[in-house]
């Protein structure tokens, strides 16, 4: 006898992510989920991002790692609320972790919530964190074919950021080919290239964030009014 179930395998995570999304919308929070391989420059991107904000900017960071609070310590010096999520072996962040740590952080909107996922191009793409956008980072010291090898995340990400462009003169990496590969998987993906080290191209990232936050605020105002 066959019993039809028709349920998402991760329905419990999806339910919690839905609650987070609702909370973000009510409190006017823009949540962005940063995903990449280990060492592609997520923390460096966050460092320069936080350094560029004025004190009055309402922003919080949740940063995930399997072990150590090194990233949180790097980010805390900018004076904004930061919390390390140590997953203790789990290769991704899930909605329950975000919910718990967001409560402990006591961050309330309106504002920007930057989530740095565990360094991994596979598992984080399956777990909805209620974010408005997933952003995938690819550094020039990786291969141009990463989007073809890990299509799941490049398909789900709204934006692909090519990082460490200051190293381009020293490595054999073709940015056009990387973008072409990403667009084979996801033709509409946004793209930018930058260096968190020199700051080259960084303005477009800040503009992208501000534009998205503006859009989210307008939507929230429309819904909540």
């Amino acid at each position, binding site marked *: 006898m066959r019993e039809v*179930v028709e*349920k998402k*395998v*991760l329905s419990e995570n999806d339910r919690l992510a839905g609650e987070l999304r609702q909370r973000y919308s009510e409190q006017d929070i823009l949540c962005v989920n940063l995903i990449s391989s280990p060492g592609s420059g997520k923390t460096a991107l966050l460092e320069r991002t936080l350094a560029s904000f004025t004190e009055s900017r309402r922003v919080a960071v949740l940063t995930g790692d399997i072990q150590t609070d090194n990233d949180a310590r790097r980010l805390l010096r900018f004076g904004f609320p930061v919390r390390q999520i140590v997953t203790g072996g789990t290769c991704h962040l899930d909605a329950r972790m975000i919910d718990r740590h967001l409560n402990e952080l006591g961050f309330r909107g309106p504002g920007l919530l930057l989530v740095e996922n565990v360094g991994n191009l596979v598992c984080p793409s*399956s777990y909805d964190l209620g974010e408005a956008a997933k952003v995938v980072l690819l550094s020039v010291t990786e291969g141009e074919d990463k989007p073809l090898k890990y299509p799941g995340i490049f398909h789900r990400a709204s934006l692909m950021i090519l990082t460490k462009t200051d190293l381009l003169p020293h490595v054999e990496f073709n940015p056009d080919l990387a973008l072409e590969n990403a667009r084979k998987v996801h033709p509409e993906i946004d793209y930018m290239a930058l260096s968190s080290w020199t700051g080259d191209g960084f303005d477009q990232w800040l503009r992208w964030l501000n534009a998205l936050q503006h859009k989210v605020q307008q939507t929230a105002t429309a819904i909540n009014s």
Partner: protein
Amino acid sequence: MHEIGIASSILECVEAEARRHPGTQVLAVGVRIGELSNVDKDALDFAFEALTRDTHRENLKLVVEWCPRRQKCLVCAEEFNVQNLELSCPKCGSDHSACVGGTELDIAYLELEESCAKS
């Protein structure tokens, strides 16, 4: 790497559904896995076997339906499977299409056997 978590979520769902059918043995659970879901079938089989071994679900079968990426043409509405990342419509040649399949990570059904007798 997260297939253990996926297998564990599948088993939680099986237990929840099984409670709705007391006295009924669950023979199999059918799942749909899309090629963009980032779940590896072999790793999932391995995780499922590891989690059910020496438990009351030891004989539970996992049946995986593998779902290719499917696109729908935004010009002529043709639906097609994507092969070798070829996203242009095979019917009209348009490059504008939307993804309509391949991200599945669903529990589709349970195969149940009426069985009140204890062996």
